[in-house]
């Protein structure tokens, strides 16, 4: 098998140039879909028969939780690719995914707490779903901390990639926690195999928000990865050229 294409994919420079074209389009669609989804969900979707208007936080809580889980797989796959193929870009993506994933997990936890107070009667309960979600948050923070803990970039990359891989165990646990154990958190509303237990008038804005969050995740990942590339590759010729610096004329670095 010819792996040439795969290795070209790993070039930070190639990634930077390709995404420059994609970015304006992605930004536009992300903002448009998020705007449509939130206005639809917050203003036009009907109130719930039991929870009234307080259920509307679902339009933030569920997409954030979705992406915090999906984002972990992005980070784990990037870590594995980096370990196996020693690909520079993969580690950059892993680092970026950790930051965005941590932010989304935090958002899911906070929105869940705000939702929990009026509906359950408590900000926080140590049930299996919420606790495993907190573990996910700490895993993301751990990956970031490990990246910063080492002087050598190679050691930092390798150790945090291994932590990432070990942490993948947590994802199916989070997902199935509400089915395996007695929890206060309700089981999944959106189901792949059977009909979702949410009325279509609320389902469609929710799905719009989920799509919007996927696009937002892609956008944030690309932006963060580009910034991280510039930081890591700041000594290379192509970055210098990008900044309009005359490479032949040695510039003094601050």
């Amino acid at each position, binding site marked *: *098998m010819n*792996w040439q294409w795969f290795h070209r994919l790993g070039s930070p420079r190639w990634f930077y140039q390709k995404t420059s074209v994609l970015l304006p389009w992605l930004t536009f669609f992300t903002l448009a879909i998020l705007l449509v989804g939130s206005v639809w969900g917050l203003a036009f979707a*009907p*109130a*719930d*028969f*039991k*929870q009234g208007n307080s*259920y509307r936080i*679902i339009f933030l809580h569920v997409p954030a939780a979705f992406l915090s889980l999906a984002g972990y797989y992005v980070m784990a796959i990037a870590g*594995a690719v980096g*370990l*196996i*193929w020693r690909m520079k870009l993969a580690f950059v993506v892993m680092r970026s995914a950790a930051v965005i994933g941590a932010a989304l997990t935090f958002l899911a936890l906070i929105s869940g707490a705000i939702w929990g107070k*009026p*509906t*359950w*009667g*408590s900000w926080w*309960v*140590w*049930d*299996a779903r919420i606790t495993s979600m907190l573990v996910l948050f700490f895993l993301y923070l751990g990956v970031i901390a490990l990246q910063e803990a080492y002087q050598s970039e190679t050691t930092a990359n390798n150790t945090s990639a*291994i932590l990432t*891989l*070990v942490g*993948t*165990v*947590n994802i199916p*646990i989070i997902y199935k926690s*509400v*089915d*395996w*154990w*007695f*929890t*206060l958190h*309700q*089981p*999944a*509303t959106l189901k792949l195999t059977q009909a979702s*237990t*949410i*009325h279509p*008038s*609320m389902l469609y804005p929710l799905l719009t928000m989920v799509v919007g969050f996927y696009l937002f995740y892609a956008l944030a990942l690309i932006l963060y990865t580009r910034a991280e590339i510039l930081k890591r590759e700041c000594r290379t010729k192509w970055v210098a050229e990008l900044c309009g610096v005359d490479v032949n004329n040695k510039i003094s670095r601050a």
Partner: protein
Amino acid sequence: MHPKRKQRLFLVLFVVVFASVAIGLMLFALRENINLFYPPSKIVSGDVPLNTTIRAGGCVVPGSVQRSKTNLDVAFMITDGNAEVEVLYNGILPDLFSEGEAAVVSGKVNERRVIEATQVLAKHDESYMPPEVAEAVSDAEPGATEADEQGKDHQASCEGMNYES
């Protein structure tokens, strides 16, 4: 694939599989402790320590909620379809607490196997619909229809719970 890379691929797979097995065994060993609450049948059968703080969860039996006229005392029964347990509580109940809905209470089980609760949480189910639709649905299916499935699926909503058993 380069042999060196193949070797690293197997290392990565080993790390993931090994970690999954280790954590899987740990969760299996702790499976009882991970549950947030005991079902009423465990309390009735005596599997629950007395006079220590525990949590119990189940559906609030319709018609069982009795409120005091002078203070915030409230008594109600919770059931998992197999057994019922009485709960005594003094305090403000959450908005979503109601008969025929699930609740999780934390408190101590006394010698009469009655829970003296210090906290009552409402557990809501995973279905969302507009009020008009909910009315139409409840008009269409009166009474319990899915009673057979109850007890097996502990997370199922209290709708269709067979309260007679």
